[in-house]
């Protein structure tokens, strides 16, 4: 299990940053059968490594992540190579500027080595919708790594790098973290700047980390969090929201997430950790939020609507794929978008266009946004009644087989059923590995908090990780 501390120690003990980065790049090559990355940024990574080695020799002060290699999901705009969003639409796109999150990590000396695979435009829950082939689960290559940040989760589980960046719109960090047995952080909406990240659904898109340890997650998030004048939705705080953390937490087990539809071993793992929290002196009670059962229906209306708007920019004119010999501008749009988007992209754009179209917007879109309020009110009510944190599974099952859900889009969507409510409410939700099922497939525990209670979730997650070590 590779961590940031391991890399720091190696460099402190005299190993060159170049050697560390070359080793990580070699691990990328060795992991080809799992297809975790779309491309490497080898030249730029080695240049930056040599620069840091020179700084070390010259005795210059170093950033806190100096020489630590990392991987970013390929929907982060980065220098040194292509940014594809795993879509044919952008397969030759070289970004002219970088995401703020990447800039902040580079300012601390971290070194981007590769771009991780994802479902094209982050549309999916298995990485099978990538136009560059699916990623395979490191624990069982016949199974999916989850998605859409499946490449990021697999790269960390394969110990290629100690941390990777992902994006989470409805579970896209938490569910692959759960399937691959790593720590996945979806912070409060607005914690990390979305500048320079390919937009999916702007009202729920967040940026977060995938790591092997809670400590590393906490550190990476503290580096990338904070207000950015280039993203007006970032919260006006420096770093993660501060929080007074009570010694004794009141923890709610979400009843609606513990039904018979959930794999028994997943439920047992959640209950075992609830018991562990009790032994630490916390209060654990069952709690009901009836409207979370409606969250998936709300999500697929609201997010598809936002997708249809955000993906309007791919028109074959300014950048990206462009059909040749178009008869006129309309033909250029139509044929470029037909060729550049895959089946899942089209489904979401068309659903979104439909629910926003004249005659349907009230029945679908406004109705969904109103039910969204109901869901948020229930969360506020529970946190207002003194609960500090909610727990439940991340997904109803452990990693499913490649191809198992590809024929039925709705079945695939149901894998998001326990993650979407937190996205709609903009509240933080983490996935913490808590054991395995009988097939040795990892199980994730979801920790959900009130808006801007990220620090409280980190404290609870650290206690849990300490407990499993002890």
């Amino acid at each position: 299990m590779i961590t940031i501390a391991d890399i720091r120690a190696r460099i402190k003990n005299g190993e060159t940053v170049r050697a560390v980065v070359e080793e990580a790049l070699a691990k990328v090559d060795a992991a080809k059968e799992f297809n975790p990355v779309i491309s490497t940024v080898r030249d730029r990574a080695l240049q930056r490594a040599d620069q840091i080695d020179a700084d070390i020799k010259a005795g210059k002060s170093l950033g806190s992540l100096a020489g630590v290699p990392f991987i970013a999901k390929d929907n982060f705009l980065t220098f040194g190579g292509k940014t594809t969003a795993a879509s044919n639409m952008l397969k030759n796109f070289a970004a002219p500027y970088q995401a703020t999150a990447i800039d902040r990590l580079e300012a601390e000396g971290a070194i981007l080595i590769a771009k991780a695979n994802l479902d094209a435009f982050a549309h999916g829950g298995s990485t099978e919708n990538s136009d560059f082939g699916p990623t395979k689960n490191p624990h069982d290559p016949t199974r999916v790594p989850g998605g859409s940040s499946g490449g990021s989760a697999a790269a960390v589980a394969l110990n290629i790098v100690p941390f990777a960046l992902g994006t989470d719109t409805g579970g896209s960090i938490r569910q692959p973290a759960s399937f691959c047995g790593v720590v996945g952080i979806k912070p409060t909406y607005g914690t990390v700047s979305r500048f320079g990240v390919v937009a999916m659904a702007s009202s729920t898109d967040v940026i977060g980390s995938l790591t092997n340890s809670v400590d590393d997650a906490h550190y990476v998030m503290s580096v990338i969090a904070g207000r950015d004048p280039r993203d007006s939705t970032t919260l006006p705080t420096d770093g993660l929201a501060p929080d007074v953390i009570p010694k004794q937490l009141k923890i709610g087990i979400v009843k609606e997430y513990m039904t018979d539809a959930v794999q028994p071993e997943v439920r047992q793992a959640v209950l075992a950790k609830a018991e562990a929290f009790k032994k630490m002196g916390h209060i654990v009670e069952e709690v009901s939020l009836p409207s979370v059962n409606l969250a998936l229906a709300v999500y697929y209306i609201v997010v598809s609507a936002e997708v249809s708007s955000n993906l309007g920019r791919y028109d074959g004119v300014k950048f990206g794929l462009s059909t040749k010999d178009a008869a006129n501008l309309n033909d250029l749009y139509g044929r470029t978008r037909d060729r550049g988007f895959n089946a899942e992209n089209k489904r979401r754009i068309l659903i979104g266009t439909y629910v926003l179209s004249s005659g349907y917007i009230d029945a679908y879109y406004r109705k969904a946004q109103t039910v969204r309020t109901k869901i948020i009110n229930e969360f506020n009510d529970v946190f207002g009644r003194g609960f500090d944190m909610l727990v439940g599974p991340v997904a109803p099952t452990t990693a499913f087989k490649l191809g198992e859900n590809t024929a039925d889009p709705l079945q695939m969507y149901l894998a998001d059923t326990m993650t979407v409510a937190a996205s709609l409410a903009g509240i933080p939700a983490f996935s913490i590995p808590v054991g395995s099922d009988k097939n040795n497939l990892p199980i994730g525990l979801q920790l959900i908090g009130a808006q801007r209670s990220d620090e409280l979730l980190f404290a609870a997650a650290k206690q849990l990780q300490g407990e499993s070590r002890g």
Partner: protein
Amino acid sequence: MSTITNDDVRYVASLAKIAVSDDEVASLTKELAVILEYVKQLDAVDTTGIEPTYQVTGLTNVTRPDKIIDYAVTCDDLLANAPRTRDGYIEVPKVL
């Protein structure tokens, strides 16, 4: 809410500017019908007196100084990604 037809899908695809083939229309109609059927459960939810949520931060009127930010990106950098350019402009096929 009503069931979606092939013609609805063709119309929506034309609004979304995606030139889908006839084969695709048939499969999309089936898939979209299943998804729209699933989301229909919201019809039964009583939302009397509840306002819709469009954003979750509560931030309003976020402003920034009216100054040019130097992104170190040149016009040439941006045009390098454009499929067709001429004389420093992006070129498009005729509109009509």
